[in-house]
């Protein structure tokens, strides 16, 4: 019992340390690497939420979804349409985010329902098509009635704000400067923490076990009395909810969205985060999201470095980025097929 108390106190101390580190992170980064990197961290947090949402569908329930970015788009447009001059509507924040989550969940069910009997490759193709359909709709819904403003996108999207307190303003508090990127950092961090908590708790629950059972053997799962239709739809809806929330946050953060931000390549990036990090393992997926957001940014420095060392830019950094990215994927699949940080179970599975 004493030991347990001790362990628990130790755990709380560890949590407190992590919390302090995370709170100090944007200021430390701002002071050393510059404000661009605080912004990159913000984006990484958004992608963490997205990757964890996709992880429910792909990692837990084993349903390969190649159109996941569609839910991100639905959430973003839901927010932007109701909080921008586009239609002159400026709905309050407390309505916008839940609504975006709800609408995205609805789209999740809409995608899930016709694909219930599909598995593997076939499911992947249908979901891929779904993602493209959403993007093309957004691109073309400017005629005959201008709903989405088509490829020009929606500008001047309201920032996250309650009354006059807007995250897009700079505040000073106790000698610390809170620039917009700092403000958003804390909101995104809180949301990401919430998504992590929900993921972890669901994984270790009756619903999570049902998802994993479907992944492992759908026929046996049905024989055990699992209503595979509802449980799969629930996975799609839960995954889409996370996507919808991060979509709304993204729209507010950027202030501008267009269909360009929601391409197949984005779906594939999110899937890479899940797979590279460690499918079905929350810490791994978070790691995957952070790494895959930060690494391509870090590779931007390769250009100036070439200049410094070689006197000229030998290889265009953006070409190099894709090259190195591809190489990293191949090496990963060869040497760590279960992901960078797989769950213990998957490690055992691949060891045999």
């Amino acid at each position, binding site marked *: 019992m004493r030991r347990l108390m001790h362990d628990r106190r130790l755990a709380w101390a560890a949590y407190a340390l992590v919390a302090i580190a995370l709170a100090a992170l944007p200021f430390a980064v701002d002071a050393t690497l510059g404000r661009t990197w605080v912004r990159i961290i913000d984006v990484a947090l958004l992608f963490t939420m997205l990757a964890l949402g996709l992880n429910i569908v792909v990692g837990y329930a084993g349903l390969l979804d190649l159109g996941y970015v569609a839910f991100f788009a639905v959430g973003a447009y839901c927010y932007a349409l109701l909080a921008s001059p586009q239609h002159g509507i400026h709905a309050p924040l407390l309505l916008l985010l839940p609504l975006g989550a709800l609408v995205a969940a609805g789209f999740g069910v809409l995608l899930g329902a016709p694909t219930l009997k599909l598995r593997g490759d076939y499911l992947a193709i249908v979901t891929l098509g779904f993602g493209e359909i959403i993007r093309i709709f957004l691109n073309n819904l400017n005629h005959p009635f201008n709903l989405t403003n088509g490829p020009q996108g929606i500008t001047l999207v309201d920032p996250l704000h309650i009354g006059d307190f807007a995250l897009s303003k700079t505040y000073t508090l106790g000698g610390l400067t809170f620039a917009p990127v700092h403000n958003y950092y804390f909101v995104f961090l809180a949301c990401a923490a919430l998504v992590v908590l929900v993921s972890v708790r669901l994984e270790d629950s*009756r619903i999570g*076990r049902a998802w994993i*059972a479907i992944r*492992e*053997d759908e*026929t046996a799962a049905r024989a*055990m*009395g699992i209503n595979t239709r509802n449980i799969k739809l629930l996975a799609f809806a839960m995954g889409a909810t996370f996507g919808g929330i991060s979509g709304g946050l993204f729209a507010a953060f950027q202030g501008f969205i267009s269909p360009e931000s929601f391409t197949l390549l984005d779906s594939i990036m999110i899937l890479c985060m899940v797979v590279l990090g460690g499918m079905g393992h929350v810490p791994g997926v978070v790691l995957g999201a952070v790494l895959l957001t930060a690494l391509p940014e870090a590779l931007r420095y390769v250009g100036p470095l070439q200049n410094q060392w070689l006197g000229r830019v030998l290889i265009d950094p953006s070409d190099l980025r894709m090259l190195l990215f591809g190489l990293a994927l191949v090496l990963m699949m060869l040497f760590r097929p279960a992901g960078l940080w797989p769950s213990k179970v998957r490690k055992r599975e691949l060891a045999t």
Partner: protein
Amino acid sequence: MSLLEARNITKRFGGLEALTDIALTIERGEIYGLIGPNGAGKTTFFNVLTGFYQADGGDFLFDGAPLDITTAHEVAAAGIARTFQNIRLFGNMTALENVMVGRHVRTRAGVVGAVLRMQSARDEERAIHARALDLLEYVGVGARQHDLANSLPYGDQRRLEIARALATEPKLLALDEPAAGMNATETATLKRLLERIRADGTTILLIEHDVKLVMGLCDRVAVLDYGRKIAEGAPAVVQRDAVVIEAYLGGALA
């Protein structure tokens, strides 16, 4: 009142009639064997009974009520649990988790309960865990609770599948060749387990090729051949039935 009454079950696959007017009655508390040569329709009958196939004719009365079979998970909820001829465990879940999945149909916790860790959900989760552990001990694989299902020895996998089926609290436990591939010792252990399950009040429907096991275990058996029931009765009687001998050994020897 009998537990299960199958009335003129017919199943066709295209032009092939896999089951023709199968009628049989399983009494409460008995071990009922379903035997027959390969391809006789035993597993097809199982799949119709457990909702994996739709019957083309006939119906089931289960526990005094018509069994409206539309989907497999409703059959499990009604109280029929099955195992598979080729073991179908959740390979990358632990033995304990496999049995915990079996509790799904008798529990209620949803997303909200799990996320908020509500008292009811936590109590239920504890009960699921305790019951799953009990069942693992019951079938004799308690020591391997934390091992992945696909890492267990063959005999343990068979018994784990039975534990998972028992977790759904079935009135009727339908086992598709549980002794297939087992050695004599494992079969003897299985026989004791099945006798104990019956003694604890669960009726068993058994497909089995191991004649010795069927004869020693079943109260009654039905013999299928080419989708028809050709004999039914006590094992000792069926064993001497001329039609059965012909079905198994061919007409020339009968």
